């Protein structure tokens, strides 16, 4: 099966879930995340999420290493942002007024790469070069990949970086918003709380953090390694607005993004309760798949569970071709 290119990913049917009116010539994709989802739109988002899950697994299996668990748990968050919420333009990744998304949990980059590819930042076929020599798709995100804002891989940097980005927008009087996705295990890093304090101190209300609360970190369950609870209370005590949602529910996520956008005078954190390894039975809630690639046989089973027909082969496809 021949894989589609990025241009095909940005097809006409794609536009169904996007705003019909483009607020500025610079904006290719604009937000309508604040509007309720129609059933058709909801179905499309679910298909996109399935395509992203399939492709990130292809990506990791082909590489022979990578982090499937946290990539699978963040999928709905990423799809919500890139297909509904962010104002961005894949043809102009450096557009100065773009909304920024910063992946702080840089090990979960296969999820981001798959979403960026489906959004048209680079060809879908590139996903199969992940972690290989001469590829722009590094084992952890690195500046240089179209659409990637921050070099990551060492935990705890992203919320600080995002605060700097958001404050730069304030200095320049630009209207963009900044989003940072953190892992829950990542919140063991003290720097996260330095950033939490400074973002609240400077009242950075254009900043939204999302914590992928999948309750598992590298070795074990977060409650075993380092207790985070009472987690929401910690953020609240640091001066943040806290919204807790089911991180696999598009309506809940989109509603939370809308409420974050309407919040003034303080930053918002969305605690997205998720299932690590979501969508693949033997990966779900299994700490073993934090940082381990599936075997070919496991991939086949995973794809079957995601509803991908075997005859589609193991190549990335545009999401419209997903069942």
């Amino acid at each position, binding site marked *: 099966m021949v894989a589609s290119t990025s241009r095909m990913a940005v097809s006409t049917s794609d536009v169904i879930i996007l705003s019909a009116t483009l607020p500025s010539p610079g904006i290719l994709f604009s937000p309508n995340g604040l509007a309720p989802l129609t059933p058709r739109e909801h179905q499309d988002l679910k298909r996109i999420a399935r395509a992203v899950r399939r492709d990130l697994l292809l990506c990791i299996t082909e590489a022979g290493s990578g982090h499937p668990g946290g990539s699978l748990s963040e999928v709905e968050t990423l799809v919500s942002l890139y297909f509904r919420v962010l104002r961005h333009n894949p043809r102009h990744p450096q557009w*100065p007024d773009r909304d920024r998304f910063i992946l702080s949990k840089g090990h979960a980059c296969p999820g981001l790469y798959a979403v960026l590819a489906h959004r048209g930042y680079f060809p879908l076929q590139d996903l199969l070069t992940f972690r290989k020599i001469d590829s722009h798709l590094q084992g952890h995100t690195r*500046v240089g990949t179209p659409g990637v804002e921050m070099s990551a891989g060492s935990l705890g*940097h992203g919320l600080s970086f995002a605060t700097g980005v958001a404050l730069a927008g304030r200095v320049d009087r630009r209207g963009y918003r900044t989003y940072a996705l953190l892992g829950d295990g990542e919140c063991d890093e003290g*720097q996260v709380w330095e950033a939490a304090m*400074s973002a609240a101190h400077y009242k950075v209300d254009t900043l939204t953090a999302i914590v992928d609360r999948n309750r598992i970190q590298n070795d074990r369950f977060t409650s075993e390694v380092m207790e985070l609870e009472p987690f929401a209370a910690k953020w609240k005590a640091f001066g943040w607005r806290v919204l807790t949602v089911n991180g696999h529910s598009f309506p809940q996520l989109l509603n939370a993004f809308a409420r974050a956008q309407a919040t003034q005078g303080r930053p918002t954190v969305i605690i997205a309760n998720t299932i690590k390894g979501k969508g693949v039975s033997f990966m779900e809630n299994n700490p073993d798949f934090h940082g381990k690639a599936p075997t070919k046989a496991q991939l086949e089973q995973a794809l079957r569970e995601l509803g991908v027909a075997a005859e589609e082969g193991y190549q990335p496809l545009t999401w419209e071709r997903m069942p």
Partner: protein
Amino acid sequence: MTTAVTREVFGQTLLELGSQDPKIVVLGGDLNKSTFAYRFGQQFPDRFFDLGPAEQNMMSMAAGFASCGKTVFVSTFAVFGTGRPFDQIRVGIAQPRANVKIVCTHAGIVTGEDGISAQGIEDLALMGALPGLTVIVPADGPETDQAARVAAREPGPFYIRLSRPATPIVHQPGFTFRLGKAETLREGNDVAIIACGIMVPAALQAAERLAPQGIQCRVINMATLQPLDEQGIAQAAAETGAIVTAEEHYRHGGLGSLVAQTIGRTLPVPMESVALDRYAESGKPELLLAKYGLTAADVEKAAVRAIGRKRR
């Protein structure tokens, strides 16, 4: 000899740069009076952010600002601006070549009475270990001024090392700082003293004292440690046949190490290094320099030793 406080010079230059270039933002960590960054903050409160003593957050925030086209100056003490946030500098600033200028004051043992926790003697090893990060140790006030201007102008990450106390001015008015170039301050062919920072005036003094004995020292100010002027070092080795390095830094990983590996690769000649071989203690700067072997007399002795080791 007239003196200047390099950190105060930096504060003034930063203020001037800030009025010329609206892209400049400044971050500090609750030491802004000491680093003189507060002057920028008074003039440009919208472009100045005090982040408290939270240097990891500060460095990653700097990277975020830089990703939006800002020229970011970050200033704190050398110990807090290099070791504490090393990982944030490495991944967030050096690897993506972010346009962040880390200007650290209170480097070295002349920080004095605060003791060894405050005396940064490892910072050059740390920053020099980061590929692509420009490392500058200005010798005096005028060089501090020019180095800050070059950092503001040139894209990419910089580390600039400054001191707490007033230090002698060695440059003539109207000199031009040349990034990445060895600067010969005194001619001589018996030995080359390659120095940086506050050891440059000490090296000049040593050369002065050796001249009546018929020993002509070449004195080279090596303000840029990375990228290193390897050609300039090799040329000094070839023309003098003996090298002395002088730095107010731990012996490993600083100027001496860089010069040694350069002459080892190009033209091996006898080399002596004047540097710290251990942690110091609290005390007055001049007494510490004497006790820990960083005076003009120490440089003088090292020069004589190096010349004595030349093949006859």
